[in-house]
């Protein structure tokens, strides 16, 4: 099966045929933005220094290393995804405010993000958690960094990537939510398991 590669700028039509569980790869611009970036834009109402319209945002806090002999050029050492659920509080507002089309992170996001993805034709995808060197290998260049005053993990790193993936679609443009579906299964099984184990834990003589 050939790789399904999306290239920024992303159009709605590129995303509409994707469903949860599909695997895609990304070419083009991927910009990190996590807790503090969301807070600055949505809560503090500060203007983002990077236009994310049609691009992809990466919930990630990388290890970057300054390239010796340069003023402000960096190379990426390790850059895996961070827990997307932390951004749930603001993502529903972040998506329309920025026009971002692809969110890359780890683990699921909630109902508000799914609703925003549906309304504004965006998707949430997961890169395999912890696989930070694998992700770094897909980065062609770190073009620049903004808001470095937030520190290395929270700054906005603007990167050009090639075949960045695998990205597993976890929320599609219909608002389907892979992790929420999985959770329902886990919870059904959980009740049975807890009940079963509890038969054996009355240790009081």
């Amino acid at each position, binding site marked *: 099966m050939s790789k399904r590669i999306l290239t920024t700028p992303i159009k709605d039509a590129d995303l509409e045929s994707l469903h949860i569980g599909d695997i895609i790869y990304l070419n083009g611009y991927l910009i990190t933005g996590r807790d503090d970036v969301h807070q600055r834009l949505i809560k503090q109402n500060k203007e983002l220094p990077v236009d994310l319209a049609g691009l992809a945002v990466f919930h990630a806090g990388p290890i970057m290393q300054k390239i010796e002999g340069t003023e402000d050029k960096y190379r990426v050492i390790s850059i895996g995804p961070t827990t997307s659920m932390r951004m749930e509080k603001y993502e529903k507002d972040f998506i329309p405010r920025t026009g971002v089309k692809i969110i890359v992170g780890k683990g699921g996001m909630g109902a508000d993000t799914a609703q925003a993805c549906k309304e504004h034709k965006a998707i949430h995808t997961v890169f395999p958690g*912890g696989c930070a060197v694998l992700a770094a290998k897909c980065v062609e260049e770190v073009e620049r960094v903004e808001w470095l005053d937030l520190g290395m993990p929270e700054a906005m790193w603007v990167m050009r990537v090639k075949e960045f993936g695998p990205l597993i679609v976890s929320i599609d443009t219909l608002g389907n939510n892979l992790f929420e579906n999985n959770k329902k299964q886990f919870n059904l099984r959980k009740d049975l398991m807890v009940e079963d184990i509890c038969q054996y834990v009355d240790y009081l003589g």
Partner: protein
Amino acid sequence: MKSIGEGLMNRAEQREKFIDIMARFTVYTGKYLPDDVHAKLKELREKEDSALATIVYDAMFEDLKLANELDRPLCQDTGVIQYFVQVGTRFPLINQIEDCLIEAVKKATCLGPLRHNAVEVFDEKNTGNNVGKRIPWIDWEIVPDNDEATIYVYMAGGGCSLPGIAKVLMPLEGYEGVVKMVFDQITSYGINACPPLLVGIGIAGSVEVASKLSKKALLRPIGSKNSNPRGAELEARIEAGLNALKIGPGGLTGENSVMGVHIEEAARHPATIAVGLSTGCWAHRRAVIKINAAMEYETISHKGAKI
């Protein structure tokens, strides 16, 4: 009486050597998984055949290979550095360990490189060198009549620290309450914390003891058992129960959910059952080194490691 090795080195040289070993070992911890974790992941990978689980395990093992080849931290989140120190009362540098470990972290941050992960509370500033108030975190155990130091390095990543929880149950909630809390937390927060997880549970009389024991449970080698037969049985039941949820690698469903379940306990108050939960992600960066009075070391968690 001084050992031969100690006699050959003065205190300043010992100190320099100790800092160097701990800096390099801390960096190493971020690049290579311990032997037991690596073996367990291999075992769990072989049981998977679904498309998504296969893709995730392939990515994990490719990442481990690349980290090795490119000599880089295998996960970008090299965590807040925690040291669990078991130090003999006659270890020559006993008075300087804290100071040396702070120096080691600064050095490791440059050498690694490690991500900057110490944010001062209230000031909300990242210190940029992984050293901050009470960080690196150091936990002490003093070993009488001994001249060695055994030091656990743990990289407390954000993702795997997020499911952490502790509370004090009323005794009539019983061990049932412990089981329920663990399952509730793993099916909500745990699925996002890079499973397969290592689950650490502490049971005690108050919340700080339970919490600390839950983290110490994560330091035990995978496959080890609680010293009480009932504790060991409960570990096995919770492990089997969590695996039956079929959370899979990355929470994307699969045949298993966890690498293991470890429980550590302290005698409780008659009126309380405190329970703490800590989780380790698949990239469980926990390493153990033993350093003797001559500053010779043995890497216990990573046999034959060249640091």
